[in-house]
């Protein structure tokens, strides 16, 4: 069973997404900020994949990814973003294994997770 860390400041969005992933047999921990995510990683053994919103108040997704990697080098990353500029895409594509725009298609996310799982 995949163990996921989901981080986004949009509480309704992340709660709904977590439910849908749980219905598909995944274990999901939800955090609404970078600080919460760092605390969750300190408490728990290991997350297979972190799904991060790029733009959040406080610690943004890219900086959060770097901090999480320092704590767990095995963790893989998927970025989600509501911003659509080419510059955002370039940064996201460079920084994470997978990069998905919002609104999200669940099939695309599952495909990304499957790819990442296959690469472990």
């Amino acid at each position, binding site marked *: 069973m995949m163990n996921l860390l989901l981080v986004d400041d*949009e509480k309704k969005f992340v709660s*709904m997404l977590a439910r*849908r992933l749980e219905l598909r047999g995944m274990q999901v921990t939800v955090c609404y900020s970078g600080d919460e995510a760092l605390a969750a990683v300190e408490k728990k053994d290991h997350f297979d994949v972190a799904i991060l919103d790029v733009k959040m108040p406080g610690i943004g997704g890219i900086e959060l990814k770097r901090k999480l990697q320092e704590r767990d080098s095995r963790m893989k990353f998927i970025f989600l973003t509501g*911003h659509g500029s080419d510059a955002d895409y370039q940064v996201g594509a460079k920084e994470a294994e997978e990069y998905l725009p919002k*609104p999200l298609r669940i099939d695309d996310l599952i495909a990304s997770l499957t790819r990442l799982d296959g690469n472990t």
Partner: protein
Amino acid sequence: MKNAKNLFGYDSLAFFGRVNASISHELKNIMAIISETAGLLSDLSEMASTGTPVDPGLLKNSTDSIMEEIQRGFETIRQMNRFSHSVDKPVISTDLIELLNLVCHLCNYLSFSGMLRVTQWVGDPPVVQTCPFQLQAIVYEIIVQHFKNAGPDGQLEVTVQPLHDSGCRIVFSNVFLKDVQVFPDDHLRNAAASIAVIIECDRDENQLELYVPSAIQLVAENDVAIQAIPADGRPSF
């Protein structure tokens, strides 16, 4: 480049673009929530069709969530519409409370927004003859600089004070500018001067004030210039 920027009104376009980018991000977030919630309802429907029991509370929460986000979307579009129409006329009678409330809404769409409050107004609204678009741009820039430096917990209070017949003072209290080397910079002062607005900043008291004259008028048709209708004088601190 400076001349080309002036020719195209680049600064105004840049402000318009920034605001619209933040509005589009807000609308995307709303659509993302509706999309996920509709997806969850679809998942639950599929479960129900295979005989798996579905929690009715979850169904109600999901549909309520969609309705709330639709209303949030309508409200966002309403603010976008108000902002878009602020360029309809270069100089017009402007309710300063309405203008500040609009700018506050627009600032709340920023990913780094903090706490912001416009003090409630009692009585006849404070109305001045000004360029609402340009005044919005100035107020927006002040609030953005505060948010960038204060972080999400920085609380900014905005108050309007009438100055008899000479206009109004817009007061920004608890404005966090200590770490900003130069503010307001020449660019912002020039933008304010273009509509006869004066900016006074007291960093030690964390206070910034805009003096907005009661009326300005266009003085020439082809070579547009702005003139403040003679006023009683500047506020004292």
